[in-house]
């Protein structure tokens, strides 16, 4: 654990931009609620990406103009959205056919913890008085969809979120492909966690100090 100090690394927008660069032209993408939603703003021009929202829309467009909101056209976070030309609506069983059947290419999620084996915990802190709520997270990670996690490298109190073993209840085992934090881009591989890119002014040791799991460098 490392205490408060001068802010280093990427902004949230830059983190979203880094994740967006890994979304190739023609991808079908599901963005989780919160920070992952920002990724859509940074997909490079010229790439055509189709957004899926598990409540029954493929071809989700941006937020509507004020006054044009339709409470029956929403995303998984229950915010009003739009539909692009070429979009389609469908029911929940068909929507999760797209997810469980591995038709979606990429899902970007937030995280409470990620283990060095790619286990993800993002739905419950396991606190005894908390009301458990899982939504679609476990379905999204259950298939062979590429799972990108976008998250601050440590908690607000400076605890590492990238750990040897998750202590929070799991969303899925061995499911994360890549982690985009404010400090680094980290690939989850069979041989462990590998740093693919460091934020400007951030060293490998600086990231390792803030990471419980062992990090590796590509040689």
């Amino acid at each position, binding site marked *: 654990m490392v205490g408060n100090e001068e802010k280093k690394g990427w902004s949230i927008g830059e983190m979203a931009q880094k994740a967006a660069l890994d979304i190739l032209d023609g991808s079908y993408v599901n963005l989780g609620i919160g920070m992952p939603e920002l990724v859509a703003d940074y997909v490079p021009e010229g790439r055509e990406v189709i957004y899926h*929202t*598990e*409540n*029954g*829309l493929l071809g989700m467009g941006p937020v509507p103009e004020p006054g044009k909101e*339709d*409470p*029956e*056209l*929403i995303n998984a976070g*229950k915010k009003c959205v739009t*539909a692009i030309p070429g979009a389609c*609506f*469908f*029911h*929940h*069983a068909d*929507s*999760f056919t797209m*997810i*469980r059947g591995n038709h979606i290419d990429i899902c970007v999620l937030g995280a409470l913890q990620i283990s060095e084996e790619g*286990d993800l915990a993002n739905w*419950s802190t396991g606190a005894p*008085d908390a*009301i*458990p*709520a*899982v*939504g*679609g*997270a*476990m*379905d999204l990670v*259950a*298939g062979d969809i590429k799972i990108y996690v976008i998250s601050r490298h440590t908690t607000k109190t400076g605890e590492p979120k990238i750990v040897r073993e998750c202590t929070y*209840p*799991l*969303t*899925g*085992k061995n499911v994360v492909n890549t982690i985009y934090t404010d400090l680094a881009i980290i690939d989850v591989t069979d041989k462990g966690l590998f740093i693919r890119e460091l934020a400007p002014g951030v060293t490998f040791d600086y990231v390792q100090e803030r990471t419980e799991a062992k990090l590796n460098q590509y040689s």
Partner: protein
Amino acid sequence: MINKIFASPAEAVEDIFDGAVVMISGFGEAGSPIELIHALIDQGAKDLTVISNNTGSGHVGLAALIAHRRVAKMICSFPRTANSKVFPELYKNGEIELELVPQGTLAERIRSGGAGIPAFYTPTSVGTPLAEGKETREFNGKTYVMQHALEADFSLVKCKAADRYGNLIYNKTARNFGPIMCTAAKTTIVQAKQIVGLGDIDPETVVTPGIFVNKVVEVANPAEESKLVAEDRRYPW
């Protein structure tokens, strides 16, 4: 003659009995059949098991049904949302039971209930607390958990238009759980924004075939849950 049209939400829900299992469509307020739920509150059935993705907002619709202590058990994927106050309080006090089901598993269990499939295997939740106590099995080297179908005595569903055969179309993302819930209940009760003539819905674009629907009632101007919540309205008013 086949005529599934009922005159009012009250008449449509009058058979719902104490202890019934009731599916309620909707994802948040989109697709939630608020007038049918309010009629059910007026009707008085209690000890219900409700299957719905969420637990309602504020003190209207599903949240009001729960607030009136009519629901003994919720089966859902996401019981707390932004304006969800009633369920969390009862749950913390141990006054309502919760079965938490991943959203896609919830959808597939409902679809299976309607399709005569008693159980299936899914990769979802393997290795997590939600798979504890559940049977697992390997297929082609990967582990899956067995899940059972969900069936209901009644489904309450909202749609855009219906005809007297019970053919339905929906509006945008308000479709969500409606079509599968229609298939999984002994009695499916639908509120439609509009009742149209036979043949007015193109047979290629019917989303729910009438065979899955038992009762239809027109609610031309359904309340908007989020507006009622913003005004802190409480049902009954």
